[in-house]
């Protein structure tokens, strides 16, 4: 079936290899780039939280910031491990099934990192921000601030709303970026089984 075709587009692509101008648009490469951007942002956020630690004197605010620093470290560590282990090239050694499994696992692992961050990091960040903002705005300490009417209710409601919202937002963002691609791979994996 394979003949010797003459296809000017294929010839042009081969010429690009010779000139060193050929580029990849593979989703694995995009994933690796996204991970790097994510790690850079995490470092910036970590530095900002670290600086905030010295700005606020209140023990509760500091505890919130320390908690966020821990989560940032945890999430960043997960991203770094994924980044280092991510081989962005398609394997010529794996069979189709093994390669689909490998890539599917990478994308779903990234999805879990994103969703866990959404689930844990953003709500704590929002709660700490709420307390810090309230404290600064009212000129009271956290202990005094939370005694104000409705403050605890407002804090509780904001956390109740933010946790599922951030989780679903992270899920939606992943779906927009890679959802269809992951679904396609899953379908192909299933079709190898049936």
């Amino acid at each position, binding site marked *: *079936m*394979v*003949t*010797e*075709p003459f*296809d000017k*587009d*294929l010839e042009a*692509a*081969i010429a*690009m*290899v*010779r000139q060193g101008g*050929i*580029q*990849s*648009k*593979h*989703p*694995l490469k995009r994933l690796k780039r996204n991970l790097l951007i994510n790690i850079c942002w995490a470092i910036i956020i970590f530095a900002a939280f670290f600086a905030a630690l010295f700005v606020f004197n209140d023990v509760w605010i500091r505890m919130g910031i320390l908690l966020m620093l821990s989560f940032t470290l945890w999430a960043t560590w997960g991203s770094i491990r994924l980044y280092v282990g991510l081989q962005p*090239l*398609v*394997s*010529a*050694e*794996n*069979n*189709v*099934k*093994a*390669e*689909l499994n490998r*890539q599917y696992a990478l994308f779903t692992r990234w999805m879990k990192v994103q969703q866990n961050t959404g689930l844990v990091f953003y709500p704590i960040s929002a709660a700490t921000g709420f307390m810090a903002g309230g404290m600064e705005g009212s000129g009271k300490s956290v202990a005094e601030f939370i005694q104000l009417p409705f403050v605890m209710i407002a804090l509780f409601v904001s956390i109740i709303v933010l946790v599922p919202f951030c989780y679903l937002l992270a899920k939606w963002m992943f779906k927009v970026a*890679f959802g*269809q*691609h992951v679904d*396609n*791979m899953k*379908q*192909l994996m299933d*079709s*190898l089984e049936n």
Partner: protein
Amino acid sequence: MSEKSQEHFLEMVRTHQGIIHQLASLYADGQEERKDIYQEVLYQAWKSWPKFRGDAAFSTWLYRLALNTILTLQRAKRPMAVLEQAPDTAVEEHLHLEDKERLHAAIKHLADMDKALISLHLEGYSNPEIASILGMGENNVAVRLHRAKQQLSQKLKRV
């Protein structure tokens, strides 16, 4: 990579460019997507070339790499088993074409994994070899090939 190795790679790719052309034609919708597939497969082959030790034939290596690349590219959503659902006009357009082109058009309407099976089969790969490239059981390959051939035969009869 040394210039000699680069020249060797380009020579091998030119000799076996039919594999890339054939798979891209089967999986791409339109010229732009075909060009993207050419570039992606060549990029991946180029980057993996230093690891090619010649344990398998270059054609088998390139076939596996091209399939792995194409099937894991982010492409537009397509129905998985479209043969029955494909509009007849899509195939009827090819009524005037030669047998080989009619066959190619019919294969293009198969589900992604069946396209891989049939193209490997037509390339002359044995069922155990196809099973090894795709990661399927040999029995599964035989069953799926039989089904895919039936689908192709029905479609070709209708045109």
